């Protein structure tokens, strides 16, 4: 945080130059033996503060004393010699404890995430080794006392298909809403409108699940049949006789669920479109839509892309809504590219593991690891897009 430190450092330096401390402080007065101990992370702020001649005295005490600050100081000798930028820095016990707690918490998070990855990896590798079939290309999931054949091909396809479908449905609508909020809705309405969309994010996914299968899915049957009768020659829209519980149903509900994430990120970048760009476009005689094409969309594209990726990451890991809505396909069912088929995602396969999960956790852990890596890659890509934007 250099921008924060520098003015303070300057101020302290000049305070040190005023010579409050050096005169009044005896060279060796500090009884704390820790003072001489070299501190590993040298804290610039406290170094400078020491140099400025302020010490452990409570603030109330300071205010109460009529004497100049320097008199009250029982500061350590060594520091008073120079405003040393590094070297042996005395630290108050309170500071040391607090800083240890704070960095301990940071470290805890690092260890935790490493542990999650390492543990999954450690448990998944032997399980994959014991697999009786090809882990990557098989569509079978037979886990039990007698069978140990499992492959992720089917899970991977359903997971990716349903998430990408949800993203494709959600992104245009989300961008439309974001533009509506930032550039169309009257200023008075913009905030409530945004809050209403955020409400969608507050609804728990299990409620989306039960609503999706009980209420929405029957209404989507007609849409499915329409699409498959018109576009049935495309494998993606191949006709199936599934009324409800299809990948399509799950994808539509997922699209609703990820809509608020994509909207809020797009909204944020659209809001930050430079005023000059907007006004320049308008001054050239653009209509509002042309202004959006010229100024807002090019500026906001990276934000929309990263929002879409974050939404995709969320969709990949969604568990309960998919478990409830999408029916399970038969074990080892042949490959089916259609949106109107059934299937299991990684998450729903793990969630419905039941007794097999307890008796033979290995295959499920392997599936969990693949899901972990998948969401990690998608989220990392989203962040990379954002970072590239801020750099250029």
């Amino acid at each position: 945080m250099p921008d924060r430190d520098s003015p303070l450092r300057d101020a302290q330096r000049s305070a040190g130059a005023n010579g409050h401390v050096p005169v009044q402080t005896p060279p060796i007065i500090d009884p704390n033996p820790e003072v001489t101990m070299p501190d590993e992370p040298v804290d610039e702020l406290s170094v400078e503060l020491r140099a400025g001649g302020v010490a452990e005295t409570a603030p109330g005490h300071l205010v109460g004393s009529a004497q100049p600050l320097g008199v009250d100081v029982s500061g350590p000798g060594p520091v008073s010699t120079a405003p040393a930028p590094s070297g042996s820095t005395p630290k108050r016990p309170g500071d040391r404890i607090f800083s240890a707690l704070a960095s301990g918490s940071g470290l805890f998070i690092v260890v935790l995430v490493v542990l999650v990855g390492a543990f999954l990896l450690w448990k998944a590798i032997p399980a994959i080794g014991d697999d009786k079939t090809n882990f990557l290309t098989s569509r079978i999931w037979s886990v039990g006392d007698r069978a140990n054949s499992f492959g992720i091909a089917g899970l991977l396809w359903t997971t990716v298909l349903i998430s990408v479908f949800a993203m494709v449905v959600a992104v245009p609508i989300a961008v439309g809403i974001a533009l509506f909020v930032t550039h169309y809705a009257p200023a008075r309405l913009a905030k409530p409108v945004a809050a209403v969309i955020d409400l969608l994010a507050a609804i728990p996914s299990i409620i989306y699940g039960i609503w999706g299968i009980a209420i929405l899915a029957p209404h989507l049957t007609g849409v499915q049949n329409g699409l498959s009768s018109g576009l049935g020659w495309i494998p993606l829209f191949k006709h199936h006789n599934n009324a409800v519980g299809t990948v399509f149903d799950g994808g539509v509900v997922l699209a609703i669920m990820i809509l608020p994430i994509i909207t809020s990120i797009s909204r944020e970048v659209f809001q930050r479109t430079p005023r000059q760009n907007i006004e320049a476009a308008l001054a050239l005689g653009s209509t509002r839509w042309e202004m959006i094409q010229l100024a807002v969309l090019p500026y906001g594209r990276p934000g929309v892309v990263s929002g879409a990726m974050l939404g995709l990451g969320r969709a990949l890991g969604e568990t309960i809504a998919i478990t409830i809505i999408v029916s399970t396909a038969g074990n080892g069912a042949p490959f089916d590219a259609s949106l109107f088929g059934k299937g299991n995602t990684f998450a729903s396969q793990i969630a419905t593991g039941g007794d097999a999960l307890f008796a033979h956790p290995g295959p499920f852990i392997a599936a969990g690891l693949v899901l972990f890596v998948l969401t990690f890659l998608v989220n990392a890509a989203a962040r990379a897009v954002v970072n590239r934007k801020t750099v250029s």
Partner: protein
Amino acid sequence: MTLAAETPTTAFASNLRARRTKNNIATVVMTGCFLVALVPLIWLLWTVISRGWRVMVHADWFSQDQRLTQDWRTPGGGALHAIIGTLEQVLVCSLISVPVGVLAAVYLVEYGTGKLRSAVTFMVDILTGVPSIVAALFIYLIFIIEFGAGFAGIYVSLALVLLMIPVIVRTTEEMLKLVPNELREASYALGVPKWKTIAKIVLPTAFSGILTGIVLGVARVAGETAPALILVQYSASRNSNLLHGNQASLPLFIYSQFPNYANVGSKENAFTHVKEVTNNYAAGRMWAAALTLILLIALLNLVARLISRRSKVSN
């Protein structure tokens, strides 16, 4: 010649008309997008409220469990067991996540330098994207498989910790960054130690913002189902012991009623021996539990909004 002079004007006029039309279409489409998004929201809320309120307003709902009413043909019972479970699991989760999350954010903003700082930022980013089922699987692996512990609510809390920490770190970090540096500098200039500056000046200034983040984090994990699905089993009776035994929570209660929500059937009357069509009470309970969960989360969001209104710092 006159023709040549006219052409640009008419071209311009028709061009302008086309542009205006395009602009109007765009306006309609944008507004339409918003209205389209309203449809599922209103539809869902209407479904849950209209189907759930009748069961929820019954006095038993907040004072009884489902011990005697497990069958979908039996009316009555309440959600007390699930409410207790949800509150306990979320409370314990918060007790762990809040200190860790807030302190980690303090580290990132006030102390962090070098490699550890970027490592923490990176790991929090990863944690933000960890699917809830993976977090649950990790806890399952450690406690239930490795340590051989039985199912219990506490493990749900631990899995929720993984999901709540990133929310709290992110919001707290944002809020701490908004605290003006002048406050810190004024405090240092008065000789206040750094830790006291953080504890007495920085954190109190950002307090309402941090609290908002915490409440939103609680709202986020209160509706999580995936951890409860594999780490604890549903119990129809009240169990307030987080450390032992099956425990219900609101999402799990919803899920337990779900398989029967569409059942229709008949039952022989015990006295007249006549088959009578029975009502399905599981559906009502399912929607009522969903409504209770939504109301709980709405309440938390409302609290968050009220707190953030009193915030001393804002962007």
